[in-house]
C-alpha cells in the first residue's frame, strides 16, 4: 500500500467546490455508487472503481471505514487485462493453420487474418484475468486538498475522470501555475506579475 509503504510517489489536487449536504455521507454514498465491481467482468479490458483503503480486493464500504482523523481515505483500483503479444502470435498461428487445413488453401486473405485476430483477441480477453493496481487517495475535504499516491499519467487521468463522475467536484492537478492560482495568498496584481514572467537566462 502506497501510503504506508516505505517510499511514496504523490501527485496533488485542489478540489474545486464543496458538497451541499454532509460531506461524510456524500463521500460514502458516491464511493459505494462507483466502487469497483466485486466480480470481474470477462469482457472489459479495463475497469476502475473505488475500494476501501483496508480492503482493496473486496469493495465493502459497510465493513471498512473511510474516515481517518479528519481525512477521507480510500483507494482507486484499476483492473487491467493485457494480452502478451507472443500469446496472440501463438494463437494466431494455430488458428491460421486450422483455417488453411479446413479450406485446403495454402494462403489466407488479409480480411481472414483480421477476422482471426479479432476472434483470438476475444478468446484471450475472456481467458486472461485482469491485473489489479491500487492507488490510495487521501482527501482533506475541509482544506480542499487531495493526495493521490501515484504519479503515473494513466492512473492520474483515470482518477480525474472517475472522481468527477463520482462526486461532481473538479480535481485540479497542482503544479506551479495552479499552486499560485489556488493555494497562494498573492494579490491579483502579484499574480499578474508572476504570470507575465519569462524563463530565466543565467548566462552572461
Amino acid at each position, binding site marked *: *500500500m502506497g*501510503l*504506508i509503504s*516505505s*517510499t*511514496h*510517489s*504523490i*501527485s*496533488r489536487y485542489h478540489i474545486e467546490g464543496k458538497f451541499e449536504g454532509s460531506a461524510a455521507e456524500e463521500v460514502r454514498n458516491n464511493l459505494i455508487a462507483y466502487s469497483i465491481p466485486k466480480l470481474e467482468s470477462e469482457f472489459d479490458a479495463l475497469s476502475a472503481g473505488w475500494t476501501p*483503503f*483496508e480492503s482493496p480486493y473486496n469493495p465493502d464500504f459497510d465493513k471498512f471505514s473511510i474516515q*481517518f*482523523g479528519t*481525512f477521507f*481515505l480510500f483507494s482507486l483500483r484499476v483492473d487491467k487485462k493485457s494480452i502478451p503479444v507472443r500469446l496472440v502470435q501463438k494463437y494466431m498461428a494455430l488458428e491460421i493453420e486450422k483455417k488453411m487445413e479446413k479450406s485446403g488453401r495454402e494462403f489466407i486473405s488479409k480480411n481472414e487474418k483480421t477476422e482471426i485476430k479479432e476472434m483470438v483477441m476475444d478468446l484471450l480477453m475472456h481467458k486472461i484475468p485482469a491485473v489489479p493496481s491500487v492507488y490510495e487517495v*487521501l482527501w482533506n475535504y475541509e482544506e480542499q486538498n487531495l*493526495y493521490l499516491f501515484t*504519479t503515473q499519467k494513466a492512473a492520474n487521468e483515470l482518477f480525474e475522470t472517475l472522481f468527477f463522475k463520482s462526486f461532481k467536484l473538479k480535481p*485540479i*492537478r*497542482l*503544479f*506551479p*501555475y*495552479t*499552486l*499560485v*492560482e489556488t*493555494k*497562494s495568498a*498573492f494579490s491579483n496584481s*502579484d499574480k499578474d*506579475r*508572476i*504570470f507575465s*514572467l*519569462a*524563463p*530565466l*537566462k*543565467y*548566462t*552572461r
Partner: protein
Amino acid sequence: MLDIATAYNKYTFLGNDFLTWIWFSIETQTDFSALLGSKDVITLEIGNSIVLENKLGDKSKEKITIKGDEAGLEEGTTALKKGAWVTQINLNCKINEDEYKFTIKGESYNITGLKTPKTDLSKTGDEIEGLVLEKAFFCFRVFEIMDTLFLKYLDQRIADDWNHKGLQDIKNWIGSV
C-alpha cells in the same frame, strides 16, 4: 484561470527555475529555517541525482543526468553556464532530527521516491489509523516546506530588485563554480 493543459506547458519554466534556485540556495548555504520562518531546524542538501535540460536550437534538447551518492556536480554547473536549467532534483531534507529524501520534478511538482522518517507503529489492527495519520503528517511536512519555498521564491522573483540582486547572485554563483 487558464486552461489546465495550456497553463501546464506555458509555466513549466516556473518550476524548473525554482529548482535551479533551490540548488543555488543550498550551495550558497541559505538558512532555510530563517527563510521559512520556522522554529524547527530545517536543512536541505542535494541528494543522489539532478537532471538538467538545455535547448539545442530548433526542437532538440540536451538532457544531463547526474546520479550517485557522492557524485560531483561539475557537469551540472557547466551545463548551467551553457544555458541549461534544472528539471528534476533529489533532495535530502532534515527537520530537526527527522530525515526526508525525495525527488521533485519542476514541471509537474510531483514528488517521487519520498522516504519519510521511520515509525514504530504497526500496519495491522488498532495502530493502522495512527500509522496512516503519522505517514500523512510526514508527507504534508515535505509539501509544506516545498510550497512555502516556492512561494518565497516567487516573492523574490517579482520583487523590484530581482534583476540586480536575486538573479545577479545566481549568475555570480554559476560564474564562480
